[in-house]
């Protein structure tokens, strides 16, 4: 049975380690903060200028000066610090963030990532996504395995790229893949998801970790 969105988020959260600084993209990645394993502490970065992002405010306590990169009202924590956009992206570009977890439209077997535009549609802009995938130490893509029965794990991305060779790990509803110089490897299957189903729904070529088949 494939993973639900919450289960995908929980699986991504299992990649976090105590003391990590983490940037979460919008969509399913946002859910990851609900599943931080007990006993570890991570600090969430919001690229608009904040480390130590807290939960949504209680009703009536929203502060227009305190939002996350998705423009949602949030709160601060005792560990919080604020900084300007140049320092925020200095942090990102300089490799100080441990993990970026973000969504994607397409990921290629060489680690290419496309998640910012579809030619012919109105472009909204890449925001901080290109900086995050280029700068953060480890990039984890968290996405549905396919969209309207079209595979999203491809040999080559067909959409304009957000980053070239930047993805380290892909977590979908069907399983977990790692990508390195040697290519893409399936390292984990969602419970009761057959390898055959994954092969059918994946255009990218991938190895299978020994013992997993």
């Amino acid at each position: 049975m494939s993973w639900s969105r919450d289960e995908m988020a929980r699986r991504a959260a299992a990649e976090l380690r105590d003391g990590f600084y983490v940037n979460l993209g919008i969509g399913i990645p946002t859910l990851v903060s609900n599943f931080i394993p007990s006993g570890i502490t991570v600090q969430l970065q919001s690229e608009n200028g904040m480390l130590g992002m807290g939960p949504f405010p209680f009703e009536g306590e929203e502060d227009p000066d305190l939002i996350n990169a998705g423009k949602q009202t949030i709160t601060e924590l005792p560990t919080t610090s604020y900084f300007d956009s140049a320092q925020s992206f200095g942090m990102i570009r300089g490799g100080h963030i441990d993990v970026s977890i973000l969504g994607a439209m397409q990921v290629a077997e060489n680690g290419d990532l496309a998640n910012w535009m579809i030619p012919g549609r109105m472009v909204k802009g890449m925001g901080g996504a290109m900086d995050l995938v280029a700068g953060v130490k480890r990039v984890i893509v968290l996405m549905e395995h396919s969209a309207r029965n079209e595979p999203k794990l491809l040999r080559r991305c067909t959409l304009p790229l957000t980053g070239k060779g930047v993805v380290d790990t892909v977590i979908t509803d069907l399983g977990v893949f790692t990508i390195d110089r040697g290519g893409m490897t399936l390292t984990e299957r969602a419970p009761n998801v057959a390898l055959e189903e994954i092969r059918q729904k994946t255009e990218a070529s991938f190895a299978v970790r020994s013992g997993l088949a």
Partner: protein
Amino acid sequence: MNKVYPDAHAALAGLLRDGMTIMSGGFGLCGIPEILVAAIRDSGVTGLTMISNNAGIDGAGLGLLLESRQIRKMVSSYVGENQLFADLYLKGELEIEFNPQGTLAERIRAGGAGIPAFFTKTGVGTSVAEGKEIREFDTESYVMERGLVADLAVIHAWKADREGNLVYRKTARNFNPVMATAGRVTVAEVEHLVEPGAIDPDHIHTPGIFVDRIIHATPLEKRIEQRTVRKRGN
């Protein structure tokens, strides 16, 4: 040397001309110089190039200047779901240059710091790098990006003293401090105006040297774009 002006109209007097380039602080609607943007709208100046992370929404922020067709070109990282923006763009009445958000911030910081160009990993291998110099340093490829300056920067701060020393509040800081450094003239609207000495000099985010004119701007609308809350007792 008096930097404090009675209102936005007075503070912008003599600074606006058609076809100029203006940086405008803020992220979404957070920390935007809303009073100054409204005054730019009222001035009727046109053909503007606006450098701003976002383009506002219908009826707020730079949305005001889109509605009035005063903007010719936007330099932004994300313009989101602005229907008017989409319409103007598709009709060819608006030009857009997308920059990765960190590249935009760094270009502005570089412009203010006298750095005409720098190299970054961001965007290598993407359309952002097309037509730009690519160079390898230590076996990794980087793209050269140029510093940005503007004829005018309009910014928002939480507190200022009369010398122009500024303090920002929480995530309303965002692009405001770097833009303060990169405007040939910088005008700040501030929520609280105090005398020199009232702000601890170790708490100042933007030294007064970067601020030419100040207005005490209240009341402000300070709209919230995405009001998200949790229930008490959760």
